[in-house]
Each structure stands twice: as structure tokens, then as C-alpha cells.
């Protein structure tokens, strides 16, 4: 006979988790630093649709597919890699789009493009051997990424 013993501690943990999860929708990013291009959307579409648009925008902007975190309202692309034969010239970029609901009903959309360079001294054209070092964010590309998002959002009703 199988005895089911319900312990109170796991139940309390589960209850606490359920209470915390809804508030994650507007949770801040783990890393708020860096350079962000921002735009406020009045009367925005539902958050799910905006995140769909974020995924499309990243692809249209030339980034490979990545991850979507509905809990943090963030879409992160894969790394767009450009290897170069010369040392320290190889680059890779990763796009981030983040959505925040505002108290007045509007929505803040933010775009950021991380940039890294390849420090490896040998095999500069081998992505497996690359040693990546963070550089300053690519703000010009972040502005382009944000415009690609607006392409998706501004023409939705048409």
C-alpha cells in the first residue's frame, strides 16, 4: 500500500512560487546596464503580440533565432558571428528586446545589442576556438533593431 505523506514545507514553497510568478511579468532585467534604445507605445497591443513582434523583428534585423522569456518579457537572439582572419577583428552581436508595461497603460519597448570581440591569437576563423571579450554595446544597431520592431507594430492594423 502506497502511503502518501504530504509535507507542509514543499506545499508552502509551491504556494509562494505561485504568488511570485505573476509579478514576474514586469520583472526588471537581471542586467539593466548597457545602452538601450527605447520607445513608448500608447495603446499597445497585448503583451503576447508584442513579444511575437519582437521575435520577428530580431529575425528581420539579421539576428539568428534565440530565446523568448515570457516571464521577463524579454526576447534574446542568438549570436550573430562575424569571424575575421585578423586578430581582435572578429565580432559577434546579440540582440535583446525587452517590454515593460507602464502605469498609464502605455508600454515601454527597449532594444539593446551586445557586442563582443574575438581575442584568440590562433585559429581566428574557428568559432569553436574563439575567446570572446565584451565590448561597448552597439547602439547604432540597437536603433535599427528598434525600428524593425516598429515596422511590425505600426503596420499591424493595416
Amino acid at each position, binding site marked *: 500500500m502506497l502511503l502518501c505523506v504530504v509535507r507542509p514545507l514543499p506545499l508552502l514553497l509551491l504556494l509562494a512560487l505561485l504568488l511570485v510568478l505573476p509579478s514576474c511579468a514586469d520583472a526588471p532585467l537581471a542586467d539593466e546596464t548597457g545602452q538601450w534604445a527605447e520607445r513608448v507605445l500608447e495603446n499597445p497591443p497585448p503583451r503576447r503580440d508584442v513579444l511575437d513582434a519582437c521575435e520577428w523583428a530580431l529575425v528581420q534585423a539579421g539576428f539568428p533565432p534565440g530565446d523568448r522569456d515570457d516571464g521577463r518579457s524579454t526576447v534574446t537572439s542568438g549570436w550573430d558571428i562575424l569571424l575575421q582572419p585578423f586578430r581582435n577583428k572578429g565580432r559577434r552581436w546579440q540582440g535583446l528586446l525587452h517590454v515593460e508595461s507602464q502605469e498609464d497603460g502605455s508600454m515601454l519597448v527597449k532594444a539593446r545589442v551586445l557586442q563582443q570581440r574575438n581575442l584568440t591569437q590562433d585559429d581566428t576563423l574557428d568559432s569553436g576556438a574563439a575567446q570572446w571579450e565584451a565590448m561597448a554595446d552597439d547602439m*547604432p544597431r540597437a*536603433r*535599427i533593431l528598434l*525600428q524593425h520592431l516598429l*515596422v*511590425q507594430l505600426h*503596420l499591424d*492594423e*493595416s
Partner: protein
Amino acid sequence: MTPWTYPKRDAACSDCSRSFQEGEEVYSLLRFHAEQLQRVDACRACFDQRDASNDVVYWRTVHREKKGAMRVDFDVLLAAMESLSQDQREERRDLCYLLALLLVRHRKLRLERVEMRGGQEYLVLRKIRSQNRFVVESRELESQRRKALTGVLAQLLDPTQDGDWDKLLKLPEAEASEPN
């Protein structure tokens, strides 16, 4: 998204009301009239006598009695955007920005970079397979304004909504002042 096709052309000249003959050259144009964007289909004589100061773009076609809906001619939209980009009036700049986004979405233009000039963003766009570049101001469009403009574009290009040119480019003050 609604298919962007042109409305069926009227069978008669917009100015003199004369019916077009089979195979006759017809001049279609987009122009601003009392702050409204309107489409006009005119015969050669009326087209030559028109006031061209409010023209945005025009094109020439041949009238055929039986013809299906035309597909979108993105070159016409591109010409309209180029023309509007020279205009400094607010509603023209808004419409120009939306046209630029539409052409980027359909991959007729490539968004090369976004430049900051005096605190204002400008899109630098390049026509695909061409070296032609266009600079269009990035506009902050209010929700109602954007809906009105996309409505104007849809009416211009949607064959199912022909004949209603009452949609103003510029929102009436009462409507514009309503809270969102």
C-alpha cells in the same frame, strides 16, 4: 495584414466624367486636396490641365474593360515616399514614415542605419539591388494618428474600400484631443 492592392480604377475621368475607351491611356495620380490624400484617374486632356502643385506621384496605365485587381506596385509607393520625404508638413512626414516602414517590411528597402541629427532620428534606407538611398525622419506617432494614417493607406490600396476619401490625414481637433 490586408493585401496591399490598388483599388479598381474608375471607368470614367474624375474631372470631365467622360468614359474611358478600351486601350485609352489613363493617368492616375495621388494628390493632396484640402489636406486629404485622394486618388484621381484622368484622361490625357484633363491631366495636362491639372494643377500639379499638390501632386504626390502619378503613373500611366491603359484602360482595359476586363482586368483583375492589380498587385501592389512598390515602385509607385517608393516614388510617393521619396516625394513626401521632401515635404516638411507634419502629416506628410508622418505618412512618409509609415510608407518607409511598409517598404522595409516588404523588403523593398533596406534599413542601413539610424542617424541622430539634432536630437532627431532619421532612417537611412537603401533600395534593394540599387545604390539609391533615402533619408526619412523617424516620427513619434500617436496611436490615433497612426490608425488614421494606416486607414488612409488601406483605403488607397484596398479594392474592397473604394470611393471613400473622407478620411482626413489630419485628425479633427475634437477627435485628436480625446484621451487615449
